[in-house]
């Protein structure tokens, strides 16, 4: 406002040089205002971009080390003194499958009853001959479920009895924390997770090369685990997410594209169409947690779908992504030039032929993008899944969409809440990296497919 005043001549009384000085002063002010404004803009962009870098940097910094975890490379002897079991039963003629299964289960139970911890202890003792080991120290160092690994090896191949084989046994979560320095080494004994003897044993085994950092394959091959944190993996959550994404793609994409086609190409302009349009735009902005409430009330409580099942989760996510897909598909239908429609109609095509033979193929890249946007949104969604019980602890990999399961982002949420913070914080960050990589791959596939479609036209 002041700037406009300065340009107005103030009458003849003002000498020329004074006026010039006044104008120059105001120009200086305006130019510095310009610079300031520019700096505000630059710093806003810098804040946003800096935050992106900071976010990714901190996730990488926390998460990358968690892809490697310590494992004991030991020679395990299946000594007959410790592994005392009868030979494996075989199906006798005339035995019903149920009876054979029972005999096998009895045998497996017997194998399970073997003191596998003793086998592990002997192997660790062989690796550190001069240390006096107690069973407690060994169990604190080796992850608890590793004894089942030995058992399964034996069940698979009973001929191992009496033999010595090289085995890699995962170290426990606490050993992982200690070796990576995620706990303060100078804390007193009362505040350490491991006893002094166990800590010395770990250091000793690490120095003589028995404990090595290996790539953490359990992260990709195991489901979640409560008893053996070191063996907790993401496979269960990944499969759960995969089932949900399949359901979303199979349901949301055809329905979304079909309704976009109807609204854009067929629907007469009337109150009902207007209502549907407002409704879809509004639905796209409804908080995701409301869809979770809908799922809990309708799918779980009314239709009695199983709790925690990817089927229910997939249906909820389908309803949630539907508006996104509809809006994006409509936009790409809108972008198709009217001349194509007119040309098709002019040559005698019916409306349906015009839409399906001429308009729709042009929008394939757009539909592809819409699909990926929707699927990526569904893949990262957590809140609605919490309300339909997908935050349950599930230690198995689901085999059908009706089994109990969890999802990748929900697993991240669950691990973040785990009591063993020192161990699970890096592992949560590793899970975040995996989720981000999956999303990145999804987008890469979309870009690749889109460019192929565009080239073909």
């Amino acid at each position, binding site marked *: 406002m002041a*700037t406009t005043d300065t340009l107005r001549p103030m009458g003849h009384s003002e000498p020329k040089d004074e006026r010039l000085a006044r104008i120059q002063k105001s120009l200086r002010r305006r*130019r510095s205002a310009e610079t*300031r404004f*520019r700096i*505000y*803009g630059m*710093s*806003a*962009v810098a*804040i*946003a971009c800096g*935050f992106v870098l900071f*976010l990714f940097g*901190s*996730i990488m910094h*926390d998460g990358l080390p968690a892809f490697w975890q310590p494992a004991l490379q030991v020679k395990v002897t299946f000594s007959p003194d410790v592994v005392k079991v009868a030979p494996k039963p075989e199906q006798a003629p005339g035995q019903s*499958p*149920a*009876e054979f299964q*029972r005999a096998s289960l009895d045998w497996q139970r017997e194998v399970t009853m073997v003191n596998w911890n003793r086998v592990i202890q002997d192997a660790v003792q062989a690796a550190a001959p001069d240390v006096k080991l107690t069973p407690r120290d060994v169990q604190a160092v080796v992850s608890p479920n590793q004894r089942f690994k030995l058992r399964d090896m034996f069940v698979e191949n009973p001929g191992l009895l009496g033999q010595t084989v090289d085995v890699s046994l995962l170290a426990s979560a606490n050993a992982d924390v200690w070796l990576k320095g995620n706990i303060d080494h100078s804390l007193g004994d009362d505040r350490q997770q491991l006893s002094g003897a166990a800590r010395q044993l770990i250091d000793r085994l690490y120095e003589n090369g028995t404990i090595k950092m290996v790539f953490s394959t359990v992260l990709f091959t195991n489901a979640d685990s409560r008893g053996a944190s070191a063996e907790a993996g993401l496979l269960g959550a990944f499969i759960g997410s995969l089932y949900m994404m399949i359901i979303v793609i199979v349901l949301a994409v055809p329905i*979304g594209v*079909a*309704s976009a*086609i*109807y609204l854009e190409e067929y*629907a007469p302009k009337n109150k009902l169409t207007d209502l*549907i349009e407002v*409704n879809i735009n*509004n*639905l796209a*902005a*409804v*908080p*995701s*947690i*409301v*869809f979770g*409430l*809908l799922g*809990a*009330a*309708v799918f779980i409580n009314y239709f009695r779908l199983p*709790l925690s099942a990817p089927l229910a989760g997939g249906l909820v996510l389908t*309803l949630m992504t*539907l508006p996104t897909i509809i809006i994006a598909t409509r936009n790409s239908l809108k972008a198709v030039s009217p001349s194509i429609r007119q040309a098709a109609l002019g040559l005698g095509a019916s409306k*349906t032929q015009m839409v399906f033979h001429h308009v729709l193929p042009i929008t394939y890249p757009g539909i592809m993008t819409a699909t990926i946007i929707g699927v990526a949104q569904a893949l*990262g969604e*957590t*809140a609605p899944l*919490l*309300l339909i*019980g997908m935050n349950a602890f599930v230690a198995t990999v689901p085999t059908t969409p009706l089994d109990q399961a969890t999802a990748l982002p929900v697993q*991240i*949420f669950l691990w*973040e809440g785990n009591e063993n913070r020192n161990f699970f*914080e890096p592992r949560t*960050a590793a899970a*975040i990296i995996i*989720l*981000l990589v999956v999303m990145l791959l999804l987008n890469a596939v979309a870009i690749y497919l889109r460019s192929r479609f565009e080239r073909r036209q």
Partner: protein
Amino acid sequence: MNSIVIILLLLALLSVGYQVGLSRGRTVAATAQRTMHSRPNYHGLMVALWCLVPAAVVLLLWAVFSNGLTTNYILSFIPSDVAGDPNLLREAMRRIEQIAAGFGVIGETQDWEVAAGEGLRQFRSVSFWSVVVLAAVLGIAGLLLMSRRIAPRLRARNEFEVAIRVLLIFCSLIAIMTTVGIVASLFSEAMRFFAFVSPIDFFFGTVWNPGFTTSGGAGTGEYGLLPLLWGTIMISAIAMLVAIPVGLMSAIYLAEYASPRVRTVAKPMIEILAGIPSVIYGVFALVTLGPLLSDIGALVGIQIRATSALTAGIAMGLMIVPFVSSLSDDIITQVPRAMRDGSLGIGATKSETIRKVVLPAALPGIVGAFMLAISKAFGETMIVVLAAGNAPILRFNPFDAASTVTVSIVNQLTGDTNFASPQSLVAFALGLTLFGMTLILNVIALYVVRKYREQYE
């Protein structure tokens, strides 16, 4: 095996129907005196449709009702003393299933178990094959009926297009049904909650303490909405204080000032933020941002909790930045070039043009964008669940822990299927409140944005 048979049946009906229709259409076309109305492939499609739809309807009905019928049938074998006890009944059902599957069971079998198992097997195969045969017969009947109608005058294409249109309309009604489902389920469950607690106590209560039992007067003051509402508003306000300046200024800078090189780097980088799942922001806020803010607070002598309204608000603000910036970018670029040129032409600087011409012209649209951003902040769940500290107390210090409507929904409903107590039903009343708030914001915002677009189109 069953599902494979069904899929094969449907595929067979589809292809046979199409082939029959196609070839019959061709013969009619070859022998008819006059030209056909529709091309033979439309006859094929119509026959396939007539073939497929009745068969699919029968199979669908069977899929819905078969379980109930089978259970009823087995129950007729089970003696009443077993059927009366749910545990015994479940065990009996399991054994009968195993007998029917030919797997056998361990231990003594009762006569009625064997009979039921045998009966179940027969019932299964008889009902399955009769349904398959019925579906096949109906399909073939449809095929015969339709293929007899094939004639030169038959408007097969038009009929097929009507079928397509019905399908499209049905798909676009799903979005409406979703909204109806949301409103109906939230409303009916919330009404059940209001039978326990009066709406006045809920909407105007200042104490949120749902407790765990329903004993005593589970009413007065314990379900007060105001602390949660205040938490939601405070956290959203902090988020807006971050998101609006950063988002708007970076949109302005990238649209008006930045060189193409900066734009091609910075724009996708900011958009990456939009694709990151909110649970990742939550973990980041909890693990990195919260301790950082708390340290900064200690430096300047303010006590900031690591999990506080401030932490959650800032993380949420950063999440909303790309949303604000892309919406503002759209709106700013829609302001006509002529208005800018006019302002620059009379000597205004670039920032003066933006502040005094472009922004006032774009104001309605930008306000609409802000309202959408606020509604997004209201509905955000994971960040506040992880980083706000979950303290549903009415207090005004943003450095202290807070709670929101969404957090309480998650807390009250997680893993709960028994919607009978006010403790879980209150989630629906909260959901209804949230839905109402966001609906009002969205409808106004969408209306404003639409009006603004029309102004410049």
